[in-house]
């Protein structure tokens, strides 16, 4: 019944001791702020990765070489598996659910000379269907066609970054570039896809027919990193996955007791795999930050204990004029709860501000979610109750005569 009045009393006491209040709250402010920033960074990374995977295209299925699990049957020398153009061709010919299929050859850091200088970029050797699967338009010129793929034409499509580096504002379509000492003709420029969460440039690519890439540039180092497939609709994805798996098992001549030597995954599975790691990271960051919250709670207890001693006389006075033990207990408990919630609120402000600042200055993706905020508030209230209870109990147990006599 007295609760409201006691909140007022606690409020007054908090206002009257601004310095003490601030010091008490500092631990909570920093703790809550840290938790929010850490979780925001983790969640931000997670949502960026997810977005990145969604950005790849729609209704996509990705085949990568290598077994899903290394445990189980030993496969000896044959465990070194590869994907081949024949695999891609077989999928294309036999799969009903696959709309487009493209092998992806790639090589990092190829040397490109052209325009005003030279540059190193990643090479992607694909089929024209790659453009459809990735939904990647050209801003100038065109993508190569099936004939150029078949004949291994020496044509390239450049990413925005390479154009910026080698040609500035000039349109490079029709120009010659030399890729790993092989002269090529620029036939198009791809639209910009921007940067990923971890700062990877998505425009630092040159795209060319996989035949050209394999035969003329990559040579014996050529290695098919994946086969990209898209389906006609989302419902077709699992069907396509099963179908592709069967086709590849046949193509690789696997016996029934042998495990797959490739993986067929959809975007969801890809992002789940990526999320697994970021979730661990988020949890770790949050755990570290929670420790500071705990330390903040101990700080509250410390100051409340000191405050009980310091205010023994006040407690005595209150008791002499009729405060019950429970009134004193409630007052001190409310004080510590109000301080921790207030600290929590300031911590949230700090955390949200900090996350936003990190997001804008460092270019890190951060995402403050309301769930974290609610948990932070609840947690700081719990800290207030838990660490405030012992000092409050101590205050309530004081004998009024002794308390009044206390100097």
């Amino acid at each position: 019944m007295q609760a409201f009045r006691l909140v007022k009393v606690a409020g007054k006491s908090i206002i009257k001791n601004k310095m003490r209040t601030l010091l008490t709250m500092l631990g909570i402010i920093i703790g809550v702020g840290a938790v929010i920033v850490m979780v925001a960074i983790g969640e931000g990374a997670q949502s960026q990765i997810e977005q990145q995977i969604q950005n790849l295209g729609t209704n996509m299925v990705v085949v990568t070489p290598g077994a899903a699990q290394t445990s189980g049957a030993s496969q000896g020398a044959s465990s070194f598996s590869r994907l081949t153009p024949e695999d891609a061709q077989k999928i294309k010919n036999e799969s009903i659910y696959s709309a487009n299929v493209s092998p992806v050859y790639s090589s990092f850091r190829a040397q490109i000379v052209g325009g005003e200088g030279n540059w190193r970029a990643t090479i992607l050797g694909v089929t024209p269907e790659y453009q459809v699967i990735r939904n990647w338009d050209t801003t100038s010129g065109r993508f190569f066609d099936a004939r150029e793929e078949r004949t291994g034409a020496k044509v390239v499509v450049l990413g925005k970054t390479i154009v910026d580096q080698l040609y500035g504002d000039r349109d490079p379509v029709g120009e010659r570039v030399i890729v790993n000492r092989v002269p090529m003709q620029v036939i198009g420029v791809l639209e910009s896809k921007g940067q990923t969460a971890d700062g990877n440039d998505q425009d630092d690519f040159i795209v060319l027919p996989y035949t050209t890439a394999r035969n003329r540039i990559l040579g014996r180092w050529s290695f098919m990193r994946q086969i990209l497939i898209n389906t006609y609709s989302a419902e077709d994805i699992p069907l396509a996955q099963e179908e592709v798996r069967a086709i590849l098992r046949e193509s690789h001549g696997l016996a029934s007791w042998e495990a797959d030597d490739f993986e067929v995954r959809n975007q969801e599975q890809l992002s789940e795999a990526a999320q697994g790691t970021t979730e661990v990271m988020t949890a770790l960051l949050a755990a570290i930050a929670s420790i500071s919250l705990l330390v903040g709670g101990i700080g509250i207890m410390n100051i409340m204990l000191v405050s009980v001693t310091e205010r023994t006389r006040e407690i005595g006075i209150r008791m002499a004029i009729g405060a019950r033990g429970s009134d004193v207990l409630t007052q001190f408990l409310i004080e510590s709860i109000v301080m921790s919630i207030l600290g929590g609120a300031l911590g949230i402000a700090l955390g949200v501000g900090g996350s936003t600042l990190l997001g804008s200055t460092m270019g890190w993706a951060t995402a403050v979610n309301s769930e974290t905020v609610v948990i932070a508030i609840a947690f700081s209230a719990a800290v207030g109750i838990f660490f405030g209870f012992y000092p409050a109990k101590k205050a309530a147990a004081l004998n009024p005569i002794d308390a009044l006599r206390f100097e």
Partner: protein
Amino acid sequence: MSETKEVIRVQQIRKTYEMGKTKVHALQGVDFNVQRGEMVAIMGASGSGKSTLMNIIGGLDYPTSGSYFLDDIEVNKLTKNQLADIRNQKIGFVFQGFNLLARTSALENTELPLLYDRSKRVKKHSEAARQSLERVGLGDRVDHFPNELSGGQQQRVAIARALVTNPSLVLADEPTGNLDSKTTVEVMALFQELNEEGVTILLVTHEDEVARYAKRIVELRDGKIIKDVPQTPDSAAKDLEELLLRRSEEQGAKEPETAQAD
């Protein structure tokens, strides 16, 4: 109302403090009654048990044996929470060291007991506190903090606080112990005035100078009452007038405003 005229009935009260093996018999069978409207001075040497008796009467402590009735309630049988409510509603305390809350205005200090009043008799707290402060002559100091007030004024705030719940009894343990002679007379004049309005007052003092304003003197020695006599009190208001007159004569016409000081 079927209340007896007695506010306090103390019967064979004993209080023994145990300090390890030694026992201190602070009160050894005290009997005494106080009627409504009395003003009693409790005297006695240091260690004679005055504060111990006051603490028991004030519901701050339990007697070791004997019984104590306040307004016909047997206080020594009450629980701690009931005792707290008795202190709140029936007793007003005035201490030697004022015991006001620091950084808290006179008004808020005076309001404080109402905060813990579970009977909720008083609805408008600040109104009641203001009236109480006016009653002790501090109507113009309501927003002052204790450190902005003189000792006498602080003690008057403490008295206002004691009065705000309209208690049956005001208990004052050496209320003038920290005050100079002029302020002492002022505070005693205030007590006499309140007593005339019907407030029952019990005060502890060492000094005859203070005790002479009471209507009755009780003397303790070694935890027993050795003297309990009524007397015709001197008027503190009159003494104060004389005192001020004498002072202004001494200082000539230099400070004609002295009467309003403090």
